[in-house]
């Protein structure tokens, strides 16, 4: 019997673990180690953050789902990996620390034959003074990165609405809280949901909305922007985004590294080196991501964290980390199998794998401060990569160690993105977009880097309906209800 350990139970880890359990059956063991007791459909946290959904509608308990799937579920956080075993253990193992009520802090070593690192990110609020610290979110801003954060965001948002109803003007500042953030799309969706809710509450005229982001242009979204086919043109996402911001009367600051947050005030540095500050009554700023801080040790106990993980804490995989300057970047730099180059039985997927470099062109201010989005690895690509990695490992377990690995390069993969504003069936609209491929391939698609037959975007009710369907469909799938394997990632 082989044992596969999956670290993390988010979109990527959950997809990998559940498919592996399905394909391996009871002859082999799948273990999931995640510190969370609930699964969270993160895209719908946006609706929780404006009071349109409850936390219960976007989460469910993992234990019964994993019990049904025959997965050995350990509510714990991974602390370290010993990929060579140790002096007293021949097999590789993971050291975990329980977070389960009643077993908090208890440590255990679990041996494995194969390991998938899908821990997701550490929400690095501490990277920006005032945004938070090592313990997480600070007191001056809100976040929608977790369901609990989103609940808190809504509480603060409702207070602002009440103030506006009493005639007190409010300033909203929404975007990214550091020069190296990703997930601009989540903040983008949130600001337009806030705008929608303010309209619905009849207080839009009492609100000043401002976007702040590390993108060098509106519509970069961490993927270097995109050209989408519209009305016979290949239209830049910059035009698309600027149009939407203007239409909804939302001001913007771009190319900004938020370097300090105080009560009611954010300080920032721009790409041109100038410094500025922006006052706010309500601010949702996405933190930068980092690896969760897993350590790795060799058989003799020496620290090999630098061998297994990149400096940002994400696991090294089969990417080209020596691509160098932007001019040298190629689509082929991006990983295909997500196998660790040193230990062939270790893989990483979702946010946990170390990308070879950003997708957006790296930029820095004259002061040397890097200000550019880091690459997104969430949502659809995250699920597809998780499934491909699970497929590879299952093949190796069932067919032998020489079985070929499955590939899922972000340079050969598309993504669908729906940013919805509002939740009602007929009173919301959404920006529905597809992008193909996620990582531009300028050799295959000269000019835009993407296939404009499959890269498109439009705003309307239709996208909004799709967002609703995706919410229910992916929660249904994650709960492993009948026919779940038929639903694509």
């Amino acid at each position, binding site marked *: 019997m082989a044992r596969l350990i999956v670290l993390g139970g988010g979109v990527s880890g959950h997809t990998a673990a559940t498919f592996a359990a399905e394909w391996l059956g009871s002859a082999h063991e799948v273990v999931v180690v995640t510190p969370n007791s609930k699964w969270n459909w993160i895209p719908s946290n946006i609706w929780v953050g404006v009071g349109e959904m409850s936390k219960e509608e976007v989460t469910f308990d993992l234990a019964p789902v994993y019990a049904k799937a025959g997965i050995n579920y350990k509510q714990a956080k991974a602390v370290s990996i010993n990929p060579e075993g140790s002096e007293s253990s021949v097999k590789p193992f993971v050291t975990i620390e329980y977070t389960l009520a009643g077993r908090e802090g208890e440590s255990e070593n679990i041996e494995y034959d194969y390991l998938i690192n899908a821990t997701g990110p550490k929400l690095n609020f501490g990277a920006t003074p005032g945004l938070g610290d090592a313990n997480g979110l600070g007191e001056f801003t809100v976040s929608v990165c977790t369901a609990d954060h989103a609940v808190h965001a809504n509480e603060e948002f409702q207070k602002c609405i009440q103030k506006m109803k009493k005639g007190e003007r409010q300033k909203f500042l929404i975007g990214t809280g550091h020069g190296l953030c990703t997930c601009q799309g989540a903040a983008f969706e949130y600001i337009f949901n806030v705008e929608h809710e303010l309209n619905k509450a009849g207080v839009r005229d009492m609100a000043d909305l401002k976007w702040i982001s590390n993108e060098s242009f509106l519509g970069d979204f961490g993927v270097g922007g995109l050209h989408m086919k519209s009305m016979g043109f290949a239209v830049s996402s910059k035009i698309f985004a600027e149009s939407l911001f203007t239409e909804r009367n939302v001001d913007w600051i771009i190319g900004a590294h938020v370097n300090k947050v105080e009560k009611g005030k954010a300080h920032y540095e721009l790409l041109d080196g100038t410094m500025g500050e922006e006052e706010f009554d309500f601010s949702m700023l996405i933190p930068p991501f980092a690896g969760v801080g897993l350590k790795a040790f060799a058989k003799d106990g020496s620290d090999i964290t630098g061998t297994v993980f990149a400096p940002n804490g994400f696991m090294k995989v089969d990417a080209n980390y020596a691509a160098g300057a932007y001019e040298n970047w190629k689509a082929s730099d991006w990983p295909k199998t997500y196998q660790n180059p040193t230990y062939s039985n270790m893989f990483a997927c979702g946010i946990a794998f170390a990308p070879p470099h950003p997708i957006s062109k790296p930029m820095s201010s004259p002061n040397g401060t890097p200000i550019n989005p880091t690459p997104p690895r969430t949502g659809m690509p995250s699920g*597809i990569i998780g499934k491909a990695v699970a497929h590879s490992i299952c093949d190796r377990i069932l067919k032998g160690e020489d079985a070929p690995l499955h590939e899922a390069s972000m340079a050969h993969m598309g993504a669908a993105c729906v940013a919805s504003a509002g939740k009602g069936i007929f009173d919301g*609209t959404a920006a*529905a977009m597809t992008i193909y491929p996620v990582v531009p391939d300028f050799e295959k698609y000269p000019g835009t880097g993407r296939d404009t037959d499959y890269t498109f975007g439009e705003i*309307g009710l*239709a996208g909004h309906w799709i967002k609703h369907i995706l919410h229910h469909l992916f929660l249904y799938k994650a709960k492993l209800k009948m026919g779940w394997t038929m639903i694509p990632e």
Partner: protein
Amino acid sequence: MGKKAEHNIKAYGKNFTSMTPGPFALKLRTCKIWQFIRFVIINIKMLIVVRKSH
């Protein structure tokens, strides 16, 4: 609704070069019949992208 979006443009401000939707474009975004057609088309396009990605 009218030309409300145009009124948000500030002369020589950062949004001066923005494209804004007119009344017809805004109407289409919420026209249930048109949006049902778009719903079918977008779903087909997304399914093609999903298929190409697996």
